[in-house]
């Protein structure tokens, strides 16, 4: 093999570094979720592209419609900034929300690391309550998918309510439900619910036990929450495709990453 002249060799190395850097950024972005849909932005196609210039990263971010709620957009934009900033080599992160009725205010706010209340002086409270409302919905939807699978396997309520976290760990080996169980265990962990093997596998989102005989009602309710999220995801994906076309850079990058993300969506497609 012919040896490359030095300057070119240097460029090859730079190119590889850049590819690695970009992959690292996408890995971080795969951890940012749309709070309403409980899906990573990378899989939703919300990331329009990433530009890296030395230690500065610019993330282009776009949404399914011009009117998508500004508060959720702000949450996602600030999560993008926070996650990408975790990379040790990153000194500066710009988030560029595009084609949105409040893109200027949001980009400006995120650029200066302003909390929501500072970026939108008319707001009277932080977004914490809103975020929590949707994390609870995410918990219910993730739990419902596992419960539905167990019921489909013919397990009765009593047996289901006796299950322990250790039993769930065993289910991680079962392919059809492994993703759902992993996502459920992750959100249990996130919410600080007991993680030891002997802990009860199923409870309400705040850890209170499910009353005997109460499983069906819990499932009925959780199934409409899960359905709302999936329905909304289908709608949003369709609108994003209509807006930006199917061959988007963001979706391609997401596809490359799919096997590498810690936690894939695991939505059961209709």
């Amino acid at each position: 093999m012919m040896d490359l002249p030095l300057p070119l060799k240097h460029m090859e190395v730079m190119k590889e570094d850049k590819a690695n850097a970009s992959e690292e950024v996408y890995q971080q972005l795969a951890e940012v979720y749309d709070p309403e849909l409980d899906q990573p932005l990378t899989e939703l196609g919300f990331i329009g592209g990433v530009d890296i210039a030395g230690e500065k990263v610019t993330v282009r971010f776009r949404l399914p419609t011009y009117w998508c709620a500004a508060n959720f957009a702000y949450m996602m934009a600030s999560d993008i900034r926070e996650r990408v900033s975790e990379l040790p080599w990153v000194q500066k992160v710009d988030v560029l929300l595009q084609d949105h009725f409040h893109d200027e205010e949001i980009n400006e706010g995120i650029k200066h690391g302003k909390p929501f209340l500072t970026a939108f002086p008319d707001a009277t409270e932080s977004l914490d309550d809103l975020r929590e409302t949707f994390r609870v919905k995410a918990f219910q939807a993730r739990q419902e998918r596992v419960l539905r699978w167990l019921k489909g396997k013919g397990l009765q309520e009593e047996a289901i309510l006796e299950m322990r976290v250790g039993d769930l760990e065993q289910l991680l080996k079962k392919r059809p439900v492994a993703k759902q169980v992993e996502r459920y265990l992750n959100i249990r962990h996130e919410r600080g619910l007991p993680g030891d093997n002997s802990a009860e596998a199923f409870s309400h989102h705040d850890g209170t036990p499910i009353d005997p005989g109460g499983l069906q009602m819990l499932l009925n309710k959780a199934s409409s929450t899960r359905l709302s999220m999936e329905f909304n995801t289908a709608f949003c994906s369709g609108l994003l495709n209509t807006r930006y076309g199917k061959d988007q850079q963001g979706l391609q990058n997401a596809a490359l990453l799919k096997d590498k993300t810690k936690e894939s969506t695991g939505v059961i497609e209709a």
Partner: protein
Amino acid sequence: MFRTKSGEEIFIIDGHMHLWDASPENVLNKYGQGFIDCFYAYHANLSPPEYVWDEATYAKYGADRMVKDVFGDGYVDMGIFQPTYLTDFYKNGFNTIEQNAELKNRHPDRFILNGAWDPRDGEKGLKDLEAMVDNYGIKGCKLYTAEWKGDSKGYKLTDPDSLRYLEKCLELGIKNIHVHKGPTIWPLNKDAFDVADIDEVATLYTDLTFVVEHCGLPRLDDFCWMATQESNVWGGLAVVMPFIHLRPRYFAEVMANLLFWVGEDKLTFASDYAIWHPKWLVEKFIDFELPEDIKQEFGVDLTMEVKKKILGLNAAALYGIDIEAQKQKLKNDGLAIAA
């Protein structure tokens, strides 16, 4: 009128339709353009390809096309006009009661004309509401709580001014309050689709019926649990319907939830014309059946009797339409194409 293969006639009331003008001449600013672009994405994304229009036609299609699409090709017997003003986005408004009334005058038996109010219009708005009753005899109003008005970016039904308007509706005999919920920046820290305010006023005003347009989507769960507790809260199926084409499984699950929580007597069919064309919606809905596992799980079924309620009987009850008498009136107006 839709005739089934066995010859049965099904009377159809389209609960939500528009005659809008979003042509470049009428668009006031980038928000008006953003609004119609968003509507177009809904249309292009969920319609079968042969029903997708070009953007210029979509921006302004005119009364003749509407009448032909809806009553000629689309099987619809009567349609409810739900005005949407958006005067901060469009010079002459997006579709106002005055514009809708012109078409009703041409085909008086085909349209139910609804009004609109906005609590931020104060005393003048209350007078305008009286005039709508005097001039057009309205029995329903469409509310758009996400509408911008100057510095205000939306309102809630529980605002003191909203309560005054609801009182006025009771006084004037306006019984049906159609509420659209949509994204807004206000209140900033809350979920724009939150239906809690409808819950509260539905309890306060049990003589009014609140039709939640789009069934609270994308907050179907919140809507269902509220509607199941309030007998005067209904669901309007605009935006739910078109999923029957691309996502039939989701459509089935949503319908099962609605039948289970809200009930077959409180749901109304709607195309949201011109976002979607009623022809394919009606055809697919008549043929649609819930999958067996969903029927089992929820203990509900979408039988032809239930479909007839959703397609027309429920809305007829809401607006006091005598279907047999109405059929006679419509028989010879020449708009419907013989099926």
